[in-house]
């Protein structure tokens, strides 16, 4: 085992590095501009102005009014706030089987406290059928929560259609847009959602900040009680540096879309994906047939353990993941891949590679060398693979 010479990070769906411009924008708010944004004096006014400028940037990026943006601590809080805040005791909720745990576990909790849940399935492409959502509607349905892009496969869900269904039925529609933010343009008007959550650190802003779009006039039960911050929708002193960073990241995301950055990103991703498919047999892309965000690929390599793959690659300096990261660092089988109908062994044989703005073509080429050689080595050790090889 040689020491790692160079580290390549292809796990940007887990988190992204803060971009230098974002860090620069935040820097004064750790020192010079330290005021509490709720204070009356000069120091408070400075940071209040910065928070509101960031709100303007986020609103412009999402195509909503600034007053419809609630700053949060991140994706999990936004998801919890929307899901728990929009329903009452005994209401019916429609969600999907491939949501992030921030939605699924919040729903599970509500189920335990008297709400009724319908989990719509996905097809082999990882797509929710809007027809299933329509059919799941009941007179007591209060909320539909379906994600915009899946974190493991990157598959984009038909949220525009679901938004229409929700509007016709006069039901709240929340979408977890954490994995779409910064990767595809987001327009809350087009989606027709009442709530949409995003997370800063998935789009090159820091960890610990996020935002929830909440359509004007939507009554929301808060999660936190305290001061009247964020128009009484989220108590707690604002995380000014984080919010400023998120505002900057939103501006950079908009500018990126104007330049067509997502096309460059998908070209890199496709180069990676095609390169791997060309070099490795018995492998395939999960969710390939669905529309996807440009940075994500989920690939199964038959006869290997994704877990061993991730560790082996990390020891060689390439950071990828098997799926959603868990607090203990342990790797659990993916509920998303199994919901798509992937066989259990294929779900376990899958890894996720996700690109960020900082990745280069050279890095992709190094990954294209490391992954096939690691797959080959692991297959050499797999009794199942050897048996097959002898047979064929």
């Amino acid at each position: 085992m040689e020491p790692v010479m160079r580290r390549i990070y292809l796990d940007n769906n887990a988190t992204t590095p803060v971009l230098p411009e974002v860090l620069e924008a935040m820097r004064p708010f750790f020192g010079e501009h330290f005021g509490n944004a709720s204070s009356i004096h000069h120091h408070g006014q400075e940071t209040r102005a910065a928070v509101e400028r960031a709100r303007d940037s986020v609103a412009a990026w999402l195509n909503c009014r600034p007053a419809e943006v609630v700053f949060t601590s991140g994706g999990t809080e936004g998801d919890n706030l929307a899901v728990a805040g929009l329903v009452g005791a005994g209401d019916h909720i429609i969600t999907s089987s491939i949501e992030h745990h921030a939605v699924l576990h919040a729903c599970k909790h509500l189920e335990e406290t008297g709400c009724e849940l319908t989990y719509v399935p996905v097809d082999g492409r990882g797509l929710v059928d809007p027809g299933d959502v329509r059919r799941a509607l009941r007179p007591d349905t209060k909320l539909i929560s379906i994600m915009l892009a899946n974190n493991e496969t990157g598959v984009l869900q038909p949220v525009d259609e679901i938004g229409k269904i929700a509007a016709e039925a006069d039901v709240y529609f929340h979408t977890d847009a954490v994995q779409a933010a910064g990767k595809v343009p987001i327009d809350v008007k087009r989606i027709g959602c009442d709530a949409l959550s995003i997370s800063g650190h998935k789009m090159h802003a820091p960890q610990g900040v996020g935002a929830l779009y909440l359509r004007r006039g939507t009554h929301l039960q808060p999660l936190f009680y305290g001061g009247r911050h964020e128009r009484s929708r989220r108590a707690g002193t604002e995380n000014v540096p984080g919010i400023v960073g998120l505002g900057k990241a939103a501006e950079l995301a908009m500018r990126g879309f104007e330049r067509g950055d997502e096309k460059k990103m998908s070209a890199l991703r496709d180069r990676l994906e095609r390169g791997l498919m060309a070099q490795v047999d018995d492998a395939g892309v999960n969710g390939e047939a669905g529309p996807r965000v440009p940075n994500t690929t989920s690939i199964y390599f038959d006869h290997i353990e994704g877990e061993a793959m991730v560790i082996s690659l990390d020891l060689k300096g390439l950071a990828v993941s098997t799926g959603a990261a868990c607090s203990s660092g342990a790797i659990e089988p993916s509920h998303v891949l199994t919901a798509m109908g992937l066989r259990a062994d294929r779900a376990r044989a899958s890894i996720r590679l996700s690109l960020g703005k900082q990745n280069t073509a050279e890095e992709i080429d190094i990954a294209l060398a490391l992954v096939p050689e690691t797959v080959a080595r692991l297959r050499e050790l797999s009794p199942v693979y050897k048996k097959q090889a002898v047979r064929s």
Partner: protein
Amino acid sequence: MSGGVDSSAVAAMLRAEGHNLIGLTMQLWNQRRLAGHEGMPESVQGRCCSLDDVYDARRVAEHLGIPYYVVNHEERFERDVVRPFVAEYLSGRTPIPCSLCNNHLKFDQLLVVAQQIGADCVATGHYARLEYADAVGRWLLRRPADRGKDQTYFLFGLTQEQLSRTLFPLGGMTKPEVRELARKQGLALAEKPDSQEICFVPGGDYKRFIDAYLAESGGALPDTAGELVTANGEVIGEHGGVHNFTVGQRKGLGVATGSPLYVIRLNGAENQVVVGGDELLYSTTLRARRVNLISVDDLREPMRVSVKIRHRHEAAPAIVEKVATDEILVTFDQPQRAITPGQAAVFYDDDIVVGGGWIV
């Protein structure tokens, strides 16, 4: 790396010797899984496989500057350790999950992972010694310097292949020396208490665990209630289920007689618990199956050894002989108390583990 002192000390020791190390923790059981079931504690802090232990192991790896990963083997652990553990109790035997875990997880799955990620050997914090005997061309498993911590009883199932890729760096050390080493290496957990009980059974109450496990997996506890009988077959009472008993048990029989009564035998097929006086607990022979031999490749003729019939048992002189392809007859010089089906009989030649099998 379990997050305990022993495996942490092993990591620190090998690191100091300049080895290229990768820290691995096996996630084997979700301690929160049965929390809240009747009779199970709500909180499971500070237990094996708990987040606290993973946290401790990770901190040690950080401290030593080695890469560290948690590998999830919950499915295999449930299949190869937990389910057999429950099934054995329900059939009137007294299982040893630690041996199953060593055979099927720690020296099987973990060795596979090690090979996959490019490691030559797996080093663990077990108290045992390993050496290669050129004369016979075999790996030998020997009792450790610290006899009080001897774990060879749980390791009798290891094959030559498994032993060839294993390191037991603590074999020559005593527990106080290990703690001292941990202190010297600056490990914060040097004073962490030893774990004593079965890692997945909170509070050591296996009966409650079995109830909760069966309830959680949707199955009701099979009715293993039956009769309490004497060795002569005389019915003297009833019992609530054979899994509540183990050979040699005195308490909880629910019958009062003039002289103390003990469980002599569990008759799983008839759900009978056979009781009697202490003298009936002694036996000179036992039979063991699913035999694994370490220091020799076969038992061609009867061999004089000493045999341990449970972890806390002074190995007793005996003759072992093969009576069928996979069955060994052990004949002790002196009768032994409470030979218990489901436990292992491990054969020693002085401090060398000859092999062992499961008592039937």
